[in-house]
């Protein structure tokens, strides 16, 4: 890079710092609040934590099985946070598995086998994003009741994949469509079945795009608050967002803030680990447009 005057470099550094601060500050702020003791929360500096403590996090895990804190039942309720955690893991894992397998199958059909009018199929599937979600949960809940799935995590496994499927099918099929065919065809000539060629050749070649689809799915599932809190009524069946929504903002309001971090940071960490793959996958799907 050719040498540039110091003020350009300084301006550039300031810009980079500003962008980073804008993106990170809200996350940092919520994290700092969760590490505070009640005393420091009231009297301390809101931007920093001097004596970080994990008491808010411990509070989420202690006092299970309905036993209540000693300060008084009205002030301190206990929450089945471990159940929420398990439920959330189950729902996320199920949503990922379901979305990826369904969208891989559909995308292979559209991008590789290319039935007549495959572009219109793809467009029609993507067009489901124009359906306003506003009050759709009313009939959706009637349907869930009809299936006997109310207050059941399986109801979420029915709904969450539909939020990510159109996008995943779009990028995966665009990628499959442009993937060179020679290698797969060579395998077919050698006598491999289509299924074997898919699992041993196409799938490994598609890793970045699958990562991108997976991260998008995780993001979509982790974003939902409304469906989860409407469909899951009883405390033990809730996911973390639904459960945190039922917690009271009172004197012990820092426990839910700790809960926010416990839910968000693992998701952020997983996304960060796969961030490079996410961009590579989107790029791969976008090359030559679609």
């Amino acid at each position, binding site marked *: 890079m050719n040498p540039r005057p110091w003020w350009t470099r300084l301006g550039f550094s300031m810009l980079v710092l500003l962008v980073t601060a804008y993106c990170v500050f809200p996350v940092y702020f*919520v994290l700092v609040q969760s590490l505070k003791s009640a005393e420091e929360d009231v009297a301390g500096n809101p931007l920093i934590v001097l004596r970080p403590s994990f008491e808010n996090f411990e509070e989420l895990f202690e006092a299970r099985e309905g036993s209540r804190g000693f300060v008084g039942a009205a002030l301190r309720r206990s929450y089945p946070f471990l159940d929420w955690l398990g439920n959330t893991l189950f729902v996320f894992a199920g949503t990922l598995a379901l979305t990826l397998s369904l969208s891989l199958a559909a995308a292979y059909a559209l991008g590789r086998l290319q039935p007549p009018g495959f572009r219109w199929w793809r467009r029609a599937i993507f067009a489901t994003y124009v359906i306003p979600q506003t009050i759709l949960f009313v*009939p959706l809940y009637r349907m869930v009741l009809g299936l006997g799935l109310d207050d059941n995590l399986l109801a979420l496994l029915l709904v969450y994949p539909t939020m990510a499927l159109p996008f995943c099918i779009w990028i995966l099929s665009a990628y499959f469509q442009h993937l060179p065919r020679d290698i797969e065809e060579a395998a077919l000539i050698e006598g491999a079945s289509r299924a074997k060629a898919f699992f041993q050749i196409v799938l490994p070649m598609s890793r970045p795009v699958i990562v991108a689809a997976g991260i998008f799915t995780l993001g979509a599932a982790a*974003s*939902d608050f409304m469906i989860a809190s409407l469909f899951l009524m009883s405390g033990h069946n809730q996911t973390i967002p639904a459960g945190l929504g039922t917690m009271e903002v009172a004197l012990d309001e820092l426990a839910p803030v700790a809960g926010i971090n416990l839910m968000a940071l693992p998701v952020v960490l997983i996304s960060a680990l796969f961030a490079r793959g996410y961009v590579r996958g*989107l790029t791969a799907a976008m090359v030559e447009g679609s």
Partner: protein
Amino acid sequence: MAYLLLSPALLLLLTVLAYPVGWEIWTSFTSYSPLQEGGAGFVGLQNYRQQIEDAQFWRTVTVTVVYTVVTIAAKLTLGLGFALLLSRPFRGRALVFLAVFLPWTYPASVAVMGWYWTLSPPITTAYSAFMGQVKHGVDGALGGGAWVFLTVTLFNIWRGSSFIGVLLLAGINAIPPELFEYALLESKSPWQRFRSVTVPLLKPFLGLGAFLSLTSAFTDVANVWMLTAGRIVFPVLGTQAYWLAIHAGQFGPASALSLLLVPFLLGALLLLFRLFDAPEREAA
């Protein structure tokens, strides 16, 4: 074979969407309400007419359009800025990239709670007095509820600019670098290169980003609802429909209100498809 592989995904989408959408369309033509005795009567287009003649409806539309236009413009501008910043190598780029990726990966479901408690803190925290002053200052200048509405807008922009930034970065990576090198030879003005090379090349991705933010802003209920704690002072179409259905029990008008959005979104979608498929069709 192709249809066999396609069917599971289609089946799931149809199950989860067909019945609810059908129900919503049917309900929009009836007087269905859980608060009403007797069955629902068929009222034809009355729900739609009632909405269009209502002054409140037009106020809601105005707020929704302003909200959508402002957020999309801000998200595209910021996102494009992030993408251009990250497309060139510099020291610490990987870390800045992760920072830009962060707002979108931070789950919105819990982020709204964090934002709500941060911006409208309970009285016990050290910064509540300060936040209260900001809130009252903004509300005093712009009218009650302006502050919460502003926070909704900011939240939407914060999260969306991250998604679009990463999407556009992927888009820039997908463009052959030679094109940018030619542009560098052709023109010395960065502004001109930006306008006549970068933007046209990125058009499909800008279109995709704009469309996804359009649908997310236009149909936004949950975030507005959470961040305003149900106190709706600046109603958007989504929260207005939600309120009509859940609090007033008027499912007919609420359905009509939600469905009135669809033609606009469909129009935007067709525009997006033109952006995306145009070059391919010429080649074929």
